[in-house]
Each structure stands twice: as structure tokens, then as C-alpha cells.
């Protein structure tokens, strides 16, 4: 029960639940799926995971870059990548999907389906339980009478007016929903076969083409404000999968002394300029565990806004450790940007773990269960006790007795 209580990683400040009233004339609030930040009025997007939004201080700011350091097998980072794109579909944003290994159309087909009714008991607040009870009895409410006149909870796609949605990993998004949004693709093998090789600014050809493609979309679709007469503004969500891997033509992941260590950092710098001048947000997954030269990862971190690292327990000795039996891995938030302000909304908890239970992916404070066994010792001390037992085999009885003494 304690784990459930601390689940959801609610920050002690409660900054995300408070919403300042924005004046009606403010054009910022007019874009679907965004909300202004409490602290600095910056537009925030949801990353697709409400618990990640809490950790990041309310959401991902428009014009910034979210960098995910992939876990060892890329399973959970791929999931976060999909959540980001799925959120864009539900909110009606435009998508730009770039990948070097999977066709973007296939990526989109596998996005998780949104959950429109709240099955996650933690996140249901009183309003909705009252409305549920109202559905059962149409007559006037006797206890929750204050909620009598509130509208019923929407179960249709109009629920996308809410910030942050839940997704069902076991189901894929419906093709109708996919058809309703506008998306752009960049599949590296396809692009490379169409155009001849060029090298601009000493950057890897794949990166150059990707930057040109992104810039073209931003300019043509007017995300940089080049069509002021367009009344309905929209956000472009850019997703780039496994940047820096060998498939992009970059050798930083496979060589100790790569030929060109500046391609990735130059790419990120130019991308930063593109994001800052347009209504867009970008998620990039990087196979950081493969990059041997740690200096590159330090520079990449400095050039990104939000950096989150995933560490999954698959294949490590922590997988069988009873302490971590509820979780699938740890999350490290390496960096949160300070935009338009001297301070940022940092969550107080630094030990975060994630779990994928049945349909939902949540990020929670790492909660070590209390050790209620007879021997007051963790698994590591257990081994020490075992080895002393073997050594003092002569006085075996005394050794067993000593195990219970913990000075």
C-alpha cells in the first residue's frame, strides 16, 4: 500500500496541479495540448507520460529538446519515444518521425492506443468518482450534491483537451486516429538512395539531410511564424530514433577514436537553433551506453535541454534482487533546463524507478520495502554470513548463532 501511496511521484510543491488563470487574450493558451507553465509562462507539452511530466517540472517546454539515453537493449527508451508520438496524435499535433532502422510508417502503426476511461485508480480524483456515481443514479445526488451540475466526464476524443493522457501498451492506435493527423517522415535508407552524397559543414551526410528536411517542414508548414495569417497554430513534434548509432553513418558508437567526433554535436547545435525559433519540441534517443568516448556524451548533455537516462535491470544482477522486484529499471534525470528564469522546477526526489505493469508505464520514487525477516541483513550481508559459516566449519553451531548477532 505504501508503494501505491507514493506512486505517481507527486512533487512536494504540488506545482503541477496549480494552474494560474491565463488572460483570455493570451494567444499562448490557444494551441491544443499545451498549457503555460506556472513559473515562467513558457508553453509546456506533455511528454506522453504524466509521471514523467511531474518529474520534469510540469512538462516539456516548446522549443526544447528531450534527450533520452537508451537503456541497454533500447526497449524502454523506444517505449518513451512512442509515448511522445502517441501524445502528439491525441492532441492533434503534427509529427515528424525520423529513423534509420525502422520505417516511420511502421513506427506509427505500433503506437500505443490512448486510454480514454481512467482505469488507473491512483490518478482518479474525487470529481470523477462523483461523476461515475452520478452515472449510476440519475436522481439528485444526496452526498456529492456539489457535483450535481458539473458536466459528465467525456469518453470520446474530446478528452484530448486534458493535459497528459494514459496509454495502453497492449493495444495499438486505431488507423482512423492515425489518418486524422498530419505527419512527415524521414527514413534514412530511402533518403540516401534518392539523393547523391553530399557533405556540408563537415557533418555526416545523414545528419545534414535530416536537418534540411526538418527545416523545410518547419518553413513550409509555417511553424516558425512565417505565415502570420494562419490563425490556428499547431505544434510540430519531432522524434528521432537512435541518433548517433552506426546506421546514421556515424562511427562514435563503434570506435574508440572516431573519425569525426563533431558531427553529432554540430547536429544538436543546429537543431537547437531550429527548435528555438519554431513551435516544436523534439525527442531524441541516443545509445549512450555504446559511445566509448565519454567526452562526447558530456558535450551532448550540455547541448540538450532535458536529459533523461534509462537503466533497465534486464540482464543485470539487479533483475533477481528482491529489492527491485517491483521495478523494471531506474530513471536518472541528468538535466532540466532553466528557461526564461534563474530557477527551474526540480522535483525533490532523485531516486526514481520505472515499472511497466500490465498496461501502464509509471515512474515512481524508488521505494525500498522494509526488511521484515528474522535476520536483520540485506542480501549482501547474507553472503558474508554464509562464507564465515564455511570458514569456521569446526564450530559450526556457533557460526549459525553468530549470524543473528549484528554488531
Amino acid at each position, binding site marked *: 500500500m505504501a508503494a501505491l501511496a507514493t506512486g505517481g511521484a507527486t512533487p512536494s510543491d504540488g506545482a503541477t496541479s496549480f494552474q494560474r488563470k491565463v488572460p483570455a487574450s493570451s494567444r499562448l493558451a490557444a494551441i491544443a495540448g499545451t498549457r503555460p507553465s506556472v513559473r515562467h509562462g513558457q508553453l509546456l507539452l506533455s511528454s506522453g507520460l504524466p509521471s514523467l511530466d511531474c518529474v520534469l517540472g510540469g512538462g516539456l517546454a516548446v522549443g526544447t529538446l528531450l534527450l533520452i539515453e537508451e537503456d541497454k537493449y533500447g526497449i524502454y527508451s523506444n517505449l518513451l519515444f512512442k509515448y511522445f508520438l502517441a501524445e502528439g496524435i491525441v492532441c492533434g499535433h503534427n509529427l515528424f518521425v525520423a529513423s534509420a532502422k525502422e520505417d516511420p510508417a511502421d513506427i506509427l502503426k505500433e503506437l500505443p492506443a490512448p486510454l480514454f476511461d481512467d482505469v488507473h485508480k491512483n490518478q482518479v480524483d474525487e470529481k470523477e468518482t462523483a461523476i461515475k456515481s452520478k452515472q449510476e443514479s440519475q436522481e439528485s445526488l444526496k452526498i456529492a450534491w456539489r457535483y450535481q451540475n458539473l458536466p459528465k466526464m467525456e469518453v470520446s476524443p474530446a478528452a484530448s483537451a486534458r493535459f497528459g493522457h494514459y496509454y495502453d501498451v497492449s493495444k495499438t492506435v486505431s488507423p482512423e486516429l492515425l489518418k486524422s493527423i498530419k505527419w512527415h517522415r524521414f527514413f534514412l535508407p530511402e533518403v540516401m538512395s534518392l539523393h547523391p552524397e553530399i557533405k556540408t559543414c*563537415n557533418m555526416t551526410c545523414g545528419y545534414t539531410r535530416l536537418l534540411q528536411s526538418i527545416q523545410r517542414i518547419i518553413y513550409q508548414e509555417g511553424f516558425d511564424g512565417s505565415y502570420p495569417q494562419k490563425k490556428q497554430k499547431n505544434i510540430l513534434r519531432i522524434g528521432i530514433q537512435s541518433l548517433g548509432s552506426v546506421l546514421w553513418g556515424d562511427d562514435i558508437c563503434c570506435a574508440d577514436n572516431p573519425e569525426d567526433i563533431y558531427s553529432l554535436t*554540430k547536429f544538436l*547545435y543546429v537543431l537547437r*537553433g*531550429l527548435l528555438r525559433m519554431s513551435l516544436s519540441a523534439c525527442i531524441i534517443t541516443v545509445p549512450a551506453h555504446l559511445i566509448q568516448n565519454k567526452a562526447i556524451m*558530456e558535450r551532448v548533455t550540455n547541448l540538450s535541454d532535458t536529459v533523461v537516462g534509462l537503466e533497465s535491470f534486464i540482464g543485470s544482477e539487479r533483475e533477481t534482487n528482491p529489492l527491485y522486484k517491483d521495478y523494471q529499471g531506474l530513471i536518472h534525470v541528468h538535466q532540466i533546463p532553466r528557461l526564461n528564469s*534563474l530557477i527551474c522546477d526540480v522535483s525533490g526526489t532523485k531516486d526514481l524507478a520505472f515499472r511497466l505493469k500490465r498496461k501502464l508505464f509509471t515512474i515512481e520514487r524508488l521505494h525500498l520495502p522494509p526488511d521484515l525477516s528474522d535476520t536483520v541483513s540485506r542480501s549482501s550481508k547474507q553472503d558474508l554470513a554464509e562464507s564465515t559459516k564455511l570458514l569456521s566449519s569446526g564450530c559450526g553451531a556457533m557460526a549459525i548463532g553468530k549470524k543473528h548477532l549484528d554488531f
Partner: protein
Amino acid sequence: MFVELNELLNASPERPEQGKLTLLRDTKTDGSFLVHHFLSFYLKAGCKVCFVALLQSFSHYNIIAQKLGVSLTAAKERGQLVFLEGLKSCFDVFFGEEQHVGQTNPLQFVSEDGSNLKTMYEFVRTSLMASGSDSWKCPVLLVDDLSVLLSLGVRPVDVLDFIHYCRVAVCSQLKGNIVVLVHSNDDSEDEENELIVNSLCHQSNLILWAEGLTTGFCKDVHGQLKIIQKGSSELKAEKNLLRIYQYKIQDKNVTFFARGMSAAVL
């Protein structure tokens, strides 16, 4: 500008020092609050400022400067501030058409093979050169994040050359000041960055080193600031003055206190 930091440094906007190189360095934390401090300090002091902002957009600095009581747009209009927005210039270099003759982009080195920062130096020099109608006090060069230049393919030697040229032009010829921010890390594997940081530490007159607490994250104390003032006279070989304070960043101000004397503890 932060009033408490002015008191600690014994600096006042009425009489800014001249000919100094100040190094801002941060480790495991974000030291950009120091950049905002010096930007508003020198603008309030009436100095002509050339700000090379490589990492953030103009509006970011403008919004924070307004909280500190200075308007960057107004300063730009009256010619007191020359703002180089690195992100925009790089965009022009990368996506723009061929430059006309005579119009060189300060970030031209991004597209070239070499790592020549000459165009950037020329930009700094021409913007800080005193023109006849100016009535500003000493010129100031402010660089936000020298470490970004390394990410763009510039060799450490060229970065140090650039700083050297700027020191000659700004500090000794024009009797101005230079303030530079670098990132560093004790266990960093970025040797080129550490080379630049060490070299600048030796050259600078004042070092402000913002470090994150070794014990980890704390809500009331955001970090520790080391102020290292080099001996004023090189001939007398005076000892460096080292002072350590802890700080807490608030929305419009930063409070400094002696170590362990945080308001939350007392």
C-alpha cells in the same frame, strides 16, 4: 545584478574595474546565473557590452534581465548592447545562401574545414571599438559558454588564441573587461575542455566557481561559490584570495551566505 554578490566582490556599478578577465566556471550545476549578474551589472554601469550568446536565444536573456531591472531591447536600441545570437547565426550559415562579399558571419567557422575564429574576433573588435558619438564607459566582452565552441569543431588552441586576441584588444588596448563562462568537471573525460579551463584559470584575474554540493541535491542550498581573486601585483607574488560561500537562487535574486549558515538551518 545581485546586490549581495556585488558586496562580496566589492564591486559597484558606479566604478567598474578595468582591464580584467573574469572566469566563470561551473561544475555539476548551472552557473548561468553569474552570466545574468554580470550582464545586468555592466549594463547598469553604463559600459558598452558585446554579448556572444552561443547557447540560448535572445528572449531568454531578455526575460531574465527584465527581472533584474535591465531591458536588453532598450539597450540594443540605444547602442549599448551588441548581441550575437549564436543559434541564429549558425542557422544562417547552415541554411543560408552564399554570403555576399564583405558580409561575414561570425560563426562562419562552422561550415569551414578549419577552426578559425578570426571572423568572430573581428566581430567583437568592431563592435567594441569606440565610435565618436559613444559616451559609454569601458567596453565589456561577455561570452556565454566557451565550451560550446569545442562542440562545434574548434580546436582548443584556436579557442585560446581567440581569448588571447580578445584580451589584447579589449583588456589592454581598449581598457575593457572580459567575462567568460566555461563548464568543467573534476572527473571529466573531456580533456580539451579541461585544457581550456586550466589555461584560462591561470590567465584570469578573478574566478567565480559555482559548484554543486558534494553531498547531493538540496532544496535550500543550491550550490557553493568559490571566489578566487588573483594577487593584484604579479611582481610581489601575492597569494590568491580564496573565499567560499553557499548560495540559494530565487526568482529575482540570489542570496549568499557563509557555509552552513543557510536560512533553513538556522
